[in-house]
């Protein structure tokens, strides 16, 4: 009989259980982290179908090589996001700029929010996707996932100062792109 899984179980414990074939433990890990991986991938590449594929590949890789995760080097979520980052970069290398232009994310907001803010979110998504990938990753990690600079720096394998400066520049670009029409005179979200 498989060991019961508790919501308080640590990731390392759940990973050990799932390694021994405990399906409930693996499902608990999946449910705990899939949204973060999907979110990162979706916002970084702008394609939900690629984000789905990335989630699938990340978790299949986790079950194939569970020992590759070393808890002393960071959280499981950071490890999964790191894998997702590599996969997204690979996908981005394959994608043409025309593909990126036409993509949209399907946001599962409440209907009212979605209805009233869709245009603005679309504009923001388009602006984020127009950023260089290294800037985009920083925005997704620090401004959307809200992780601190040090964790982002570890995740991206760069210095904290680099994260700060990239984020500063990225935000400046995004703010310029989202500037209201009457102020910029060039049309928000259209100058991509």
């Amino acid at each position, binding site marked *: 009989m498989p060991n019961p899984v508790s919501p308080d179980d640590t990731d390392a414990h759940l990973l050990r259980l*799932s390694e021994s*074939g405990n*399906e409930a433990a*693996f*499902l608990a890990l*999946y449910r705990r982290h*899939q*949204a973060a*991986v*999907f*979110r990162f991938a*979706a*916002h970084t590449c702008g394609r939900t179908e690629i*984000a*789905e594929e990335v*989630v*699938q590949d990340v*978790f*299949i890789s986790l*079950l*194939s090589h569970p020992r590759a995760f070393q808890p002393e080097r960071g959280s499981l979520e950071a490890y999964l996001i790191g894998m997702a980052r590599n996969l997204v970069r690979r996908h981005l290398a394959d994608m043409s700029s025309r593909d990126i232009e036409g993509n949209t*994310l399907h*946001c*599962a*907001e409440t209907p009212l*929010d979605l209805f009233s*803010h869709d245009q*603005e*979110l679309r*504009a*923001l*998504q388009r602006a984020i996707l127009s950023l260089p990938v290294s800037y985009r990753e920083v925005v997704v990690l620090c*401004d*959307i996932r*809200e992780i601190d600079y040090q964790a982002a720096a570890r995740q991206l394998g760069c210095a904290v100062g680099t994260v700060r400066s990239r984020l500063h520049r990225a*935000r400046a670009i*995004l*703010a*310029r*792109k*989202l*500037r*209201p029409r009457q*102020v*910029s005179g060039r049309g*928000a979200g259209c100058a991509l």
Partner: protein
Amino acid sequence: MNPTSGEDRLDEALRRLRRTRLSASPGTAALVLGAFRAHHERRRRRRVAILTSIAATLVFVFIAAKLLRPTAVPNTAEAHFIALPYGESGVPLEEGVVIRLDLPAADLAQFGVPPSLRPKSKRVHAEFLIGQDGMARAVRFLPTQKTNSFKE
């Protein structure tokens, strides 16, 4: 709040974006779960195959050890040669050889072993002292053990 600057709009939009609930579809969950099951099924089969081959190897080694076990050398320290009546031919024993035989007890009569000296068992292990004339001169019986001697 009605954001007017680009920074305000950005902050507001980012806040809204953070509130969006994005997650992989149930289809992806099903695919990942399917991959998990397939992975562990493959592992289970591999484990069964490994255990089966280990068990087969152990059985093979056990059988081989049984078959190839070195045969025990009979203890001859306590047995004494008994002179055979046919051996008293008058020809002095100048040289001889000892041969070890595993033979039916009934065949001992051919060598002139008196019935009173024959062991009770059906087969006997015995060493015969053969003289230079080819006649069996003496015999001694060995404890009943497996030997690698000639079988009659």
